[in-house]
């Protein structure tokens, strides 16, 4: 069984990568996840200027998964570049690639963010387009329409030579349309999915619990939503897909790979399984692939696609 997987010409020791926003705040923490067996790590999304994020409650466990509205809190890209450089140095001896996640509130700013983050020379850039477009009259996230998604992708493309992963939101009528737009605009890979819009309410307080009222669902509850997104994207795009959403075991990871994922992102499973979740999932995946007679993750990629 050979787990090493290539995506966008970058070699990952295994296909299980840390999703953005989970444990991705510090170099020491990214390295800790890598040491515990992750195949790749993604930093928390950062923007040109620092952001405080929303007041608490921002992250909750509602029983079938998590909900969060951290509000993209981050120290700003100047500080982030230092974190990424430190992380790069620490990750190098482990041969674990670093994916740097960026976001912005206008298309121009996405370009600037890409230029700044590239200075840290991460192995790939992930473009989180699920944040609200403040330049847009309605404030809708860029991920919600194909024109915006394409414009953001182009802006990043024009400002960096690094491979670009565009991360899609599931909160759209047609995720495939957005994926195709990103691909056409020059994305090297697609990540799907970001968290699913939702709300938890406390009947005693008679109000939503998150300070931001609504937030993003993640964890076991969203796995079928993610599988469907990856499955449908795989039938449409040619570029590799990072499948993310509700993966908490080797079995879940294999489902995602069979749906068409090249890499598998893991976030909320850290809640149940701790920092070593990713390494454990990679090991479970290796055993399962062996049991089922596949000689590598890529040999199982997309096999769940059957003739219509």
């Amino acid at each position, binding site marked *: 069984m050979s787990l090493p997987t290539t995506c966008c010409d970058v070699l990952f020791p295994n296909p299980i990568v840390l999703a953005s926003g*989970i*444990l991705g705040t510090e170099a020491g923490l990214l390295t800790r996840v890598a040491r515990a067996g992750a195949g790749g790590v993604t930093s928390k999304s950062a923007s040109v200027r620092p952001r405080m994020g929303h007041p608490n*409650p921002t992250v909750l466990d509602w029983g079938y998964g998590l909900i969060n509205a951290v509000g993209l809190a981050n120290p700003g890209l100047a500080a982030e570049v230092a974190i990424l450089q430190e992380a790069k140095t620490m990750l190098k001896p482990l041969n674990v690639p670093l994916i740097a996640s960026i976001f912005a509130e206008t298309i121009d700013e996405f370009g600037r963010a890409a230029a700044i983050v590239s200075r840290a020379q991460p192995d790939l850039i992930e473009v989180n387009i699920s944040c609200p477009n403040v330049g847009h009259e309605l404030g809708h996230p860029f991920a919600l329409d194909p024109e915006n998604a394409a414009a953001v992708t182009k802006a990043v493309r024009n400002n960096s030579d690094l491979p670009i992963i565009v991360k899609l939101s599931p909160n759209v009528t047609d995720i495939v349309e957005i994926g195709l737009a990103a691909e056409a605009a020059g994305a090297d890979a697609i990540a799907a999915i970001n968290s699913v819009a939702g709300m938890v309410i*406390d009947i*005693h*307080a008679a109000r939503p619990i998150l*300070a931001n009222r609504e937030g993003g669902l993640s964890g076991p509850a969203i796995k079928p939503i993610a599988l469907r997104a990856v499955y449908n994207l795989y039938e449409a795009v040619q570029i590799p897909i990072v499948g993310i959403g509700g993966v908490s075991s080797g079995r879940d990871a294999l489902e995602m790979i069979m749906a068409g994922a090249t890499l598998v992102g893991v976030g909320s499973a850290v809640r149940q399984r701790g920092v070593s979740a990713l390494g454990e999932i990679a090991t479970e995946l290796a055993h399962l692939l062996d049991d089922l007679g596949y000689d590598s993750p890529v040999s199982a990629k997309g096999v769940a696609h059957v003739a219509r």
Partner: protein
Amino acid sequence: MLPANRHSFSLPQPAHIVRIVRENYRTVTFTFDLSWPDAGPGQFLMAWLPGLDEKPFSLLHNDPLQISVAAVGRFSRQIQQLHSGEQVWLRGPLGHGFQSQPGPMIGIAGGYGVSPIHFLATWLRNRRERHVIIGARTARDLLFAERFRAAGVQVHLCTDDGSAGEMGVVTVPLNPLLAAMPDATIYACGPTPMLEALAAICREQHRGCQLSWERYMRCGFGVCGSCARREDGWLACQDGPVEIIPG
């Protein structure tokens, strides 16, 4: 499909305040109509005031739940406005607390750090020797001295200005204790500079210690990375808040 409403323990639970005790000019102790019998000293909870914020507080007691809050900012002042019978929403128990070691206890508490140290002292009530060093800026900031004494703990006070106990920081009364009790375990909670000084002393003397650190927290369960230490990614909420440093 799983049974409904699996979430009750992970989401904030409403609790009524049943008793409010003023400890000093800025610190108040709340007792709630909720118990977490499995929770131990050093563990914490997240307290939510709807519409305001959610903040971590160390447990002063588990059964019934108690916390002590020092008024220092928006949240801590607001919670002190509440009356008996009003509600606070509590999420926990969170984190890993102190690990009781055989032998004598030396507790070291700065500011509201008395809270988990007092819980620990009652937890270890059958120990031969229990000492606690309480440090503060000035006499009126000192907390819990009588409570500790009532619990049979030997109390050592110190203040920056010498207005009560010895003059100086907690290391002043600590040094003779360390010398006198080579088998004692050090358990500490307080401001970061105090803990850093203690860590340095213990490192130098090759003594183990248990230090409870404070960091800004969001999830409280090891997911968001808000509370991570830069160097090694140690998570105050999940790996800690108590760090067990071997000797």
